Every structure is written in structure tokens, then in C-alpha cells.
């Protein structure tokens, strides 16, 4: 018998990198958003819509949402893995998490491109 310690599927490093890359995208966007909103000072529907009608802001906001949902997937999955021990329930929660996040992504795209 070979004495071997199983160390997992090595998806950890990929997720570790993505968690940080998406965090940086969101952090940069947060600064851009606060600066833009501070400069425009949207006080009506028209000026507020104007912020997201701008091509760059639409694209940046879309990137923010995609990063947010991927980042949330990794973080929430870690929470399930830390606290939920029964395999079936853990799997169920992970699937539900992934499903709602994919749904939110569709919703966010729809909000942005209707504007």
C-alpha cells in the first residue's frame, strides 16, 4: 500500500488568485465610481442615468458586477466549507449559491443595457 496524503484538486491556487484579482477590480471601480459620482453629483433620474449611459462607466460597472459575483462565489463557498459539514447540505448550498449568482449576473446585465 502506498502511503499518500491526498491534497485536493489544486483548484485552491486558481481561486486564491481570482479572489484577489476580482478584489482589485472592485477596489479600483469603487474609487472610480466615487470620483465620478462626486464630480457629476447626480441629483435627478436623467443625470443618474447619464452616469451609466457613458460607455466607459457601463463597461466598468459590468466588469465590477462580474468580479463581484465571482468573488462572492469563492467567499460564500469558503463559508459553506467552513461551517456546513453534511456533504449533501453543503453541496445543495453551493449549487444554490452558484445558481443565484449566475441569475444576478443576468439581472445586472439587463439593468445596465436597458439604461
Amino acid at each position: 500500500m502506498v502511503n499518500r496524503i491526498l491534497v485536493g484538486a489544486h483548484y485552491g491556487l486558481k481561486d486564491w488568485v481570482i479572489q484577489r484579482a476580482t478584489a482589485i477590480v472592485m477596489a479600483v471601480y469603487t474609487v472610480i465610481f466615487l470620483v465620478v459620482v462626486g464630480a457629476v453629483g447626480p441629483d435627478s433620474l436623467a443625470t443618474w442615468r447619464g452616469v451609466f449611459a457613458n460607455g466607459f462607466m457601463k463597461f466598468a460597472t459590468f466588469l465590477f458586477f462580474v468580479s463581484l459575483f465571482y468573488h462572492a462565489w469563492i467567499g460564500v463557498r469558503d463559508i459553506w466549507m467552513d461551517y456546513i459539514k453534511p456533504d449533501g447540505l453543503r453541496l445543495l448550498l453551493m449549487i444554490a449559491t452558484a445558481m443565484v449568482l449566475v441569475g444576478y449576473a443576468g439581472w445586472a446585465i439587463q439593468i445596465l443595457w436597458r439604461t
Partner: protein
Amino acid sequence: MAEMAIKKKRPKNLDLPTIRLPLPGILSIIHRISGAVLFLLLPFLLWLFESSLESAETFASFRGVVDNALVKIILLGLIWFYMHHFCAGIRYLLLDLHIGVDLKSALLSSKIVFGVSIALTLIVGVQVLW
């Protein structure tokens, strides 16, 4: 060898009320709680975002919701959660780069995170909500 290390019995204390977390530990658990709460409230936040942009009617109802004093308090709390997650996250990125890993600077950076995130919450929250 490695197997021995894994099987070694370690003392455990999971009696939460008797654990006194140091400041970086408090920062860490708030980082997790804030992330979880922001995740759970994503549908509410997306709905707010949608109604703020969709049409004049939904914009008016968005205004009505946000003008509610209780909603303002909740949103201020969520802004703090966001700012805490943001500032603590930047601290973790620096720790990844081995910046500020010793005890003294880890404690100092935790204090900075709490100070900056609360200040940002007040600045942004007051601008946006009042």
C-alpha cells in the same frame, strides 16, 4: 512525517464566549460577516439599483424607499460593511505581499482599517443618504 503532523491531537477551544479576539481577529470576523451579509442582501441592492435607473415611476419609488429612516440606517450599515470589507481586503492584499506581517504593524494596520472605514462610511453615507 507529514502524516504524523496531520494526525497530531491539538487542543481545541471552541467555547466562543470565552475567546477574547485581538483586534486583527475582530477585523477578520467582521470581514467574513460583512461579506456574507452583503451577499445575502444582493437581491435587495440589485432591486434598488434597478429601480433607481429604470423609469421615472420606479425612480420615484426608489426615492420613497431610500427616504425611509429605517432604510437609511440599514443602508448606512451596509455602506460600513462595504467599506470595512474594502479596507480590510486591501490590508489582506498587503499581507499577501508580506507587508505588515509582524505583530506590531498588524495591530496598527487593523486600527487604521477601522478608522478609515468608519470615516469613509460617514463621509459617503452622509453625502448619499442625507
